[in-house]
């Protein structure tokens, strides 16, 4: 199947990041094009999560340039990244534990809401109207991810897989342009992975969202991603279509092993 990709959305050039003595990323460059699903793979501790953290401003790389939508930036706080349309999910679930599923997702949408404190205190009128309007949007996301039945459940009580799904919902509620997914399918069984893939593909298709995906399940990566970056010990050792990467000897040695 041929897929059409647009221009470069984000371009990472010569990124290096280290923590004290640990070099998490060394001189890494790659780009992500509009509407594509870009996977990052690599052994544990290779620096994949760190890469996502660099993209949305949680980590500030010591060296390198990031060009997002044509604008170059070096340092940027995470909330700015969010306001420019970058959303993400986390490797270790980072939901707001004390809140219900619905509230979590509504929080994800807060940037689109602009009532102030006082109208919130009053509630009736503007704040209520806004709340209901956005509730509708959020319900769309809920329908989309098929989590209607757990709307009012506190997220802490949910099983792991559903929590991951709620996290995705929260990210989607912001209607992001670029979606960063850190191991969204870890800890899921095949059935759930299939669901998750379906959602990711649908998001990508229906909303045209660009996706950067970290995943260890090679089945998934090879099936749904358009291009793959391979990291190892903070260095880039491969980049290309799934098929190219699959046959790259460096990648086989460092990551895939012989059984694949």
């Amino acid at each position, binding site marked *: 199947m041929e897929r059409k990709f647009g221009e470069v959305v984000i371009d990472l050039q010569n990124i290096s990041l280290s923590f004290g003595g640990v070099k998490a990323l060394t001189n890494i460059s790659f780009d992500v094009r509009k509407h594509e699903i870009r996977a990052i793979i690599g052994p*544990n501790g290779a620096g994949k999560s760190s890469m996502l953290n660099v993209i949305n401003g949680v980590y500030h790389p010591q060296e390198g340039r990031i060009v997002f939508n044509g604008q170059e930036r070096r340092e940027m706080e995470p909330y700015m990244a969010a306001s420019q349309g970058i959303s993400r999910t986390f490797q270790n679930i980072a939901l707001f534990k004390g809140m219900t599923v619905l509230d979590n997702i509504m929080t994800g949408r807060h940037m689109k809401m602009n009532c102030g404190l006082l109208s919130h205190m009053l509630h009736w009128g503007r704040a209520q109207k806004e709340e209901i309007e956005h509730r509708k949007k959020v319900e769309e996301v809920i329908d989309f991810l098929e989590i209607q039945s757990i709307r009012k459940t506190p997220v802490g009580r949910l*099983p792991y897989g559903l929590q991951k799904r709620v996290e995705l919902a929260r990210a989607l509620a912001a209607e992001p342009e670029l979606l960063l997914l850190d191991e969204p399918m*870890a800890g899921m069984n095949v059935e*759930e992975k299939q669901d998750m893939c379906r959602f990711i593909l649908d998001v990508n298709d229906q909303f045209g969202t660009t996706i950067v995906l970290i995943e260890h399940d090679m089945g998934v990566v090879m099936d749904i991603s358009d291009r793959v970056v391979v990291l190892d010990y903070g260095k880039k050792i491969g980049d290309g279509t799934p098929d190219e990467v699959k046959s790259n000897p460096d990648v086989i040695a460092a990551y895939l092993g012989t059984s694949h």
Partner: protein
Amino acid sequence: MNTANQTAAANAAPYLSVNNIEVIYDHVILVLKGVSFEVPKGGIVALLGANGAGKSTTLKSISNLLGAERGDVTKGSIEFKGTRVDQMTPNELVKRGVIQVMEGRHCFGHLTIEENLLTGAYTRSISRRELNDSLEKVYHYFPRLKTRRSSQAGYTSGGEQQMCAIGRALMAKPEMILLDEPSMGLAPQIVEEIFEIVKDLNGKEGVSFLLAEQNTMVALRYADFGYILENGRIVMEGEAKELANNEDVKEFYLGLSGEGRKSFREVKHYRRRKRWLS
């Protein structure tokens, strides 16, 4: 399969047996509704099932870690080597050789990797030398940990933490390990390695395993026996090989259909209902 193991398993009295337990969280949320199964000595038993089926809860009720989450075993009994263990503290259980590797790593964030591993040997009163030997063995299994031995665990990557958690349990020199989702977040190579380690420990040292695993494919490849848990009930059980060939298991847990592996891209929105969810 290891035939010696199997016969031994068949002859021995049940090693770990869980009889009809019921678990309630917070006094109101009923999660396990009468679960019973056995793990024979030297066996590897896999506990499979969807998210929220109650796998972790089962493991935690065996290792008695439920109390810390305000959960309670309200019915049934758990026996290990013929003695009831459901009222024992986790410490006593570890001393008797049962240890759990918790889901979600739970490393001690402020301790270094090596200190994390050393805490695993807390229950063993052993000399410094033996301790070092044990450490070396773990480092031998997970070379990656050795390179990060003096980093604070909180700052290591997800996979490194997973290895740390497993390594920490090995330090206790257990007879029986309750492994909760060992493969989560690990690179495929490491997953294989970890299961090789499981097989190795099982074969060479006779350690028994109870695995809760989502990666059914791998789990069934290494396990002798499997139970499938859904909604707090055991819905299916059988030899691992049989299960792997069961049509339903194939479809729902292995992602295989009649024509072999389906691409994740091709999956449909609507699927056949599971038969046991009538």
